């Protein structure tokens, strides 16, 4: 368990796409050029995102777990996605539900929700990993060997929620190739299948989350123009609204036990589904203290309850249209994704909002996973759709807290990713050697009203008089939407050590520890796993380097070529030996020997992309080739008028000597 299956001599590892949903999850893959959902032995593709933990530590995932929920509401975890990347005091923990939340015993513990299940403490990352493990097994049953996964996330997920999802993938023994936004995945599957071009809106209302994405489809290019949403808005909230009413019918409105809550929520969901096709439904409900009652719910009554929930989606949609700079009438189509868009009120609402009938030729349950499978196939290089390009965006603005608690935006929402920004700060105390930076995500003016991402502490700044040290801080958001921060002192050129303290979620060490716990033989297996991972990376490098030699050896002079071939040979030898450290050392050596060449090859690729057939332009572009160091995107530190640079820090860390 937990080991990456890598060297299966029989089956070549194949990539998979996973829709890790609040209510339902799904795994898909590309077969004979077309994406297909992987089904279980009963022929079912949807796996309910429910996990039951029994008293002996056994884990059951899916339909069977759902059946346990009524009798074991505390031991069956549903909708865990709503808790991903959230802190112990998140409002979600106070909503109607059956989970037994463990109070944090330290500020460190408060960084994540903790669930008490069968006397154990579990985090949402571990529960999600159990779901992912089940999906992985399903895929392995069909394909023998799984070679990496694209996992989808709501477009509106913030950094902590994305990181938590990635951690869950790792914990489940999956190599996470990419986190892909759910609406983008849907558009990919739909657009490629229907060969559509134009401006589309994807309205994705699932069990737990809502996304709206406006994107342009143009001959294989999927360019997101804007995105918006709410990562705590979905069918679950409809169930809660109706469930509350049902609890009153049952005479159990105050302080109901988990069994009663589970019953009310399940009945609410059944009623909601029934009212999609019918005007009225009668529910037989037990009453507290014995007996039973029949509650009749009409569609009109449900609509009155869900209206405020659905109307919240309208605010996000209007903003997304504004951010995209278009009117609804400019759209060529509206795609409905997610099970909750089956609710007739939602359909009507979307039609009125966008002034058009949404497209019907789409499977709202599967389309996200199919898109993920296509993307996985493309990433693995096995896909034939070489012209596909996904350009996604940052869903929420990134900012840093400045003096006075104001969040200064460094990257606005809807910036195309990968994205970068650079800011220069100065020290403001003599001999100051440390510096702290608070990064937040969100649109509000005050940092305290945004979501805290992390505090970054810089250490080892060369002691200088105040204002002399100039710290250049580089922010990178990668294609998964995840942030990294680097810092350098400008005058000395010294790279600063950056300590990251995430505000929410698990630290790297915690994930490592969980990984170790998941492996039966601890250390020994851990070493084996490390070696296996290094070998994969080495194989990858060998193949890539040999390919590069075949294509671009002319960009090397004789001595460089000799160095590359030497490093190649040494790495080949190292792979056959059994030491992870040695393999890593030879990887680094090859990395070094090919660094400059890689730059030249990239320039050639760029020139080809730009010029197509115009060869003279190729040379002009190659002439623009620059050093690696300078290739970082720049965001000139532009301070608000009147502010002096030295006021912009968030406080010295008191390390001045």
């Amino acid at each position, binding site marked *: 368990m937990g080991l990456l299956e890598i060297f299966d001599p029989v089956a070549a590892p194949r990539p998979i796409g996973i829709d890790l949903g609040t209510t339902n999850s799904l795994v898909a893959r590309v077969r004979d050029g077309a994406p297909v959902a992987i089904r279980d032995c009963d022929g079912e593709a949807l796996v309910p995102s429910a996990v039951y933990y029994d008293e002996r530590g056994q884990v059951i995932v899916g339909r069977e777990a759902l059946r346990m929920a009524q009798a074991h509401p505390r031991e069956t975890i549903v909708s865990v996605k709503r808790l991903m990347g959230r802190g112990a005091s998140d409002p979600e923990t106070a909503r109607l539900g059956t989970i037994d939340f463990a109070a944090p015993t330290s500020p460190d513990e408060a960084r994540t929700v903790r669930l008490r299940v069968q006397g154990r403490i579990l985090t949402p990352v571990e529960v999600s990993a159990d779901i992912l493990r089940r999906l992985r097994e399903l895929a392995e049953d069909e394909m023998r060997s799984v070679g990496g996964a694209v996992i989808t996330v709501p477009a509106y997920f913030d950094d902590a929620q994305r990181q938590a999802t990635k951690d869950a993938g790792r914990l489940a023994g999956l190599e996470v*190739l*990419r986190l892909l936004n759910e609406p983008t995945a849907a558009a990919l599957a739909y657009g490629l299948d229907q060969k559509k071009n134009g401006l589309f809106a994807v309205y994705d209302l699932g069990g737990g989350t809502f996304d709206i994405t406006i994107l342009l489809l143009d001959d294989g*290019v999927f*360019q997101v123009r804007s995105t918006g949403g709410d990562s705590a808005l979905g069918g679950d909230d409809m169930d809660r609204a109706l469930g509350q009413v049902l609890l009153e019918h049952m005479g159990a409105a105050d302080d109901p036990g988990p069994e009663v809550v589970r019953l009310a929520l399940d009945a609410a969901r059944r009623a909601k589904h029934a009212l999609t096709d019918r005007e009225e439904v009668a529910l037989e409900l037990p009453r507290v203290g014995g007996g039973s009652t029949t509650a009749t719910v009409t569609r009109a009554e449900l609509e009155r309850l869900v209206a405020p929930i659905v109307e919240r989606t309208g*605010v996000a949609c*209007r*903003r997304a249209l*504004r951010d995209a700079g278009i009117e609804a009438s400019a759209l060529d189509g509206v795609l409905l994704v997610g099970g909750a868009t089956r609710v007739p009120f939602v359909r009507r609402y979307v039609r009125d909002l966008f002034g058009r009938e949404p497209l019907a030729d789409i499977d709202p349950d599967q389309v996200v996973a199919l898109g993920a499978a296509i*993307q996985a196939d*493309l*990433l*693995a*290089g096995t896909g034939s759709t070489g012209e596909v*390009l*996904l*350009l996604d965006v940052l869903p929420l603005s990134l900012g840093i807290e400045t003096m006075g608690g104001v969040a200064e935006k460094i990257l606005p929402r809807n*910036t*195309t*990713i*990968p*994205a*970068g920004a650079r800011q220069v700060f100065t020290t403001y105390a003599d001999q100051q050697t440390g510096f702290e930076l608070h990064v937040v995500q969100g649109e509000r003016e005050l940092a305290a009203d945004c979501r805290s991402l992390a505090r970054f502490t810089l250490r080892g700044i060369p002691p200088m008089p105040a204002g002399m040290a100039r710290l250049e801080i580089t922010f*990178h958001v*990668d*294609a998964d939407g995840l942030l990294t921060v680097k810092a350098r002192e400008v005058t000395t050129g010294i790279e600063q050590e950056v300590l990251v303290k995430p505000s929410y979620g698990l630290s790297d060490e915690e994930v490592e520890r969980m990984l170790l716990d998941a492996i039966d033989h601890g250390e020994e297996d851990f070493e084996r796993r490390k070696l296996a991972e290094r070998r994969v*990376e080495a194989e*990858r*490098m060998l193949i*890539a*380097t040999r390919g590069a030699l075949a294509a671009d050896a002319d960009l090397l002079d004789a001595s460089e070529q000799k160095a590359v071939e030497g490093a190649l040979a040494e790495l080949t030898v190292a792979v056959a030996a059994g030491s992870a450290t040695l393999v890593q050392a030879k990887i680094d050596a*090859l*990395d070094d020997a*090919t*660094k400059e060449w*890689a*730059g030249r090859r*990239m320039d050639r*690729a*760029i020139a*080809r*992309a*730009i010029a197509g057939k115009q060869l003279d*332009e190729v040379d*002009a*572009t190659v002439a*623009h080739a620059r050093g*690696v160091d*300078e*290739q*970082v*995107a*720049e*965001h*000139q530190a*532009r301070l608000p*008028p009147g502010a002096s640079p030295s006021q912009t820090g968030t406080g010295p860390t008191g390390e001045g000597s």
Partner: protein
Amino acid sequence: MTHDPFTVLGLEPRFDVDLAAAEVRHRELSRALHPDRYQGKPAAERRMALERAIEVNAAWRALRDPVTRAEALLAAGGVELDERAEPKASPALLMEMMELQEELAEVRGKRDAAGLRRLGEALRTRERELCARLAPAFAAARGDAARLRALLPAVGELRYLRRFFEAYAAAEEELAA
């Protein structure tokens, strides 16, 4: 040090840059550099591609906005960009901006959507006119620092308008909610 967005996208540096052509160029470069293309490649190559893809995205972002576009042209001509050192806005402009602020506060207070739309339209017209004046002025400066410096007040005005646009967008959001 700063990477000129025109150079990054391989385009002729001009204020009235053809944005459609720039978009095409951005796509072509993204096709070559996007991290999706470097999956499974050695780490150094992935890092390098990531940094270049970031640069290409930043350049495209800079060119789309008239303020950053103007600033790029100024910087390329060797004009140092430091708002605090730039000439102060004219009293007439300050007065006008103050009046606009008051008008905005008023329509905001009255939740007057039509009034807000009118204000937004007026702002956009004002920006368009300013850009139409700046384009030939930038062309005539031919990258000469002294002549570019003479454009600083107009660029400052563009920045004022930008800030006002932000306040306007916030009001729009408030009214839509």
